[in-house]
């Protein structure tokens, strides 16, 4: 069984960020820090758990982007993936999900994967679209926001539970090959082990050039991004200590900060 895990490199949200001059993405500098999209860490961990439970499973990790994304592919290897694939796509900055899905589908379509996993969304744009678009381009079934899955390799089926609004759970059966977007909390992503870190660093990645054939024109154009509007304001409470405590409790209650 072959699993492909799609991982995205995102800017570390803890580092200080500035918009680029045209106001359309983050300004990348030498000190800009990147890391693996946390949502994709859950997808990779789920693949690793499937591999541990089923002998003969191999895991490939793939990332689309400029050369710097090799680092997250290596990180995927250091967590235990077998092979790392880098689809070189030189465009830095915002890249519409459709273009990424096109690249992943172009590669995955030639590799006969049984299962493709992604995180439920990316931390930066939070669009949740690459997974379903890739499934659509490959004409394979897709389930999103998966919180549990059970594979039946004999009948080539997978039963999945997906999280819905208000805590409801949807259960569906998909035939393999299929694509799942994995919800957080389904597992506890592991730390890279030392032996895998060493292996990852010496292992060659599979380098793939981006394909621009059959790429349809964008139907969505990013106009601009902005800093969040400053919304915090100071409220000074008046009165005795008891009165202030009462007011504070009311504020907490009104903002649902107390259960």
């Amino acid at each position, binding site marked *: 069984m072959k699993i492909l895990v799609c991982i995205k490199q995102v800017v570390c949200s803890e580092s200080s960020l500035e918009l680029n001059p045209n106001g359309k993405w983050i300004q990348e500098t030498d000190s800009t820090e990147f890391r693996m999209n946390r949502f994709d860490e859950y997808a990779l961990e789920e693949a690793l758990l499937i591999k541990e439970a089923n002998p003969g499973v191999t895991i490939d990790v793939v990332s689309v982007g400029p050369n710097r994304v090799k680092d997250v592919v*290596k990180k995927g290897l*250091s967590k235990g993936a077998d092979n790392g694939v880098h689809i070189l796509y030189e465009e830095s900055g915002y890249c519409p999900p459709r273009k990424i899905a096109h690249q992943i589908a172009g590669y995955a379509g030639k590799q006969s994967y049984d299962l493709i996993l992604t995180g439920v969304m990316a931390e930066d744009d939070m669009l949740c679209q690459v997974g379903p678009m890739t499934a659509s381009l490959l004409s394979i079934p897709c389930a999103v926001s998966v919180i549990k899955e059970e594979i039946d390799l004999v009948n080539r089926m997978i039963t999945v539970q997906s999280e819905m609004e208000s805590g409801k759970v949807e259960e569906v059966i998909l035939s393999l090959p299929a694509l799942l977007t994995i919800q957080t909390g389904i597992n506890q992503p592991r*730390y*890279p*082990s*030392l*032996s895998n*870190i*060493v292996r990852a*660093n010496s292992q060659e990645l599979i380098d793939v050039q981006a394909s621009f054939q059959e790429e349809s024109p964008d139907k969505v154009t990013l106009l601009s991004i902005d800093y969040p509007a400053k919304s915090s304001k100071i409220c000074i409470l008046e009165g005795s200590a008891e009165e202030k405590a009462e007011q504070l409790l009311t504020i907490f209650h009104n903002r649902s900060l107390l259960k």
Partner: protein
Amino acid sequence: MGSEIYFTKEHEMVRKAIRDFVNKEINPYVDEWEEKGIAPLHEIFKKMGDLGFLGMRYDEKYGGEGLDYWYELVLLEEIGHIRCGGIPMAIAVQTNMATPAINEFGSEYLKEKYMKPAIKGDMVAAIAVTEPDAGSDVAAIRTTATKNGNHYILNGSKTFITNGTQADFLTLLARTSDNPGYHSFSLFVVPTKLPGFQVSKKLDKLGMRSSDTAELYFDNMKIPAENLIGIEGEGFIQQMQQFQHERFACMPMTYIGAKDMIEETVKYLRGRIVFGKPLITKQVLRHRLVKWLTEIECLKQLTYHIVRMKMAGQDVSREISMGKLFSGNLLDEMAGGCLQMFGGMGFMNEMLISRYYRDSKLISIGGGASEVMSDILSKLEGF
């Protein structure tokens, strides 16, 4: 600055992995463990063992990673960022104090039965040398191991034993002969589950409070003869060699901890306004800080020099003794100096600087006191 001269990208990946682990799995719990006076070492070591952090230099045959001294240094530097001294010390006991002798002199049986689980994090190790009447004066130890058929009978006591209440085995130095001289001692692996072993008491300490320290008692304890490490009578020499790993471990943990201490102090001095200006603007304080930073850099560079010497297979006893002495002197001066800059706040237990101050004191006492380092160096210099 300049670390890329010594560390490769591979080293940095390992560093990042250890740093992530420390930030997520250790630092958030340090306050709780300090309060309790003990840390769950089996749980922490299991997690570290699974990731390969406890056997970096050891052979892959025993679950180690077979890596070089630079990787070991990366580990020691990163655990130096743990926000207390007790946990890094507990880890270093496992990696640099209680297992090197088994690795270097132990039988295949001992490596399989004790070193392998210690690397995996399934067993907690401790080093048992110090006794109530024998500290830095190691040759004065009185605990005896008397050969009796296929066993040794152990009698005596050990004190100030780090990890002592939780250890699954001790690497223990005992007297195996009444003859004078250094060839009357032997090193043993002592499993703590055997009858005759007792934790007399858990000791209350000035610092390193998250680390459990114990006094241990051995009453006619029967240990299998195969638990002897190497050759009978060679234990003292073996332990002196093992001490080199222990003393070396003090150095990176000192310069990393000291640098963190300076950063903590500078942060406070920037925010503390006295007579209308931040304290950091006072020249006398700035000059003291950079003096310590200079000494920290010197210690770091001596450490890197030692690693290069080790990689070249050279004897590093002299340089390590110097580094251990320098570490103790530096911390004795700067921990108090930094705390002084915090004024009254520094005296409050809620401030990290007070913990640094308490924990730092051990560096000039444990693992061979500064006075012993000075004596060793005097002898090596021929005076």
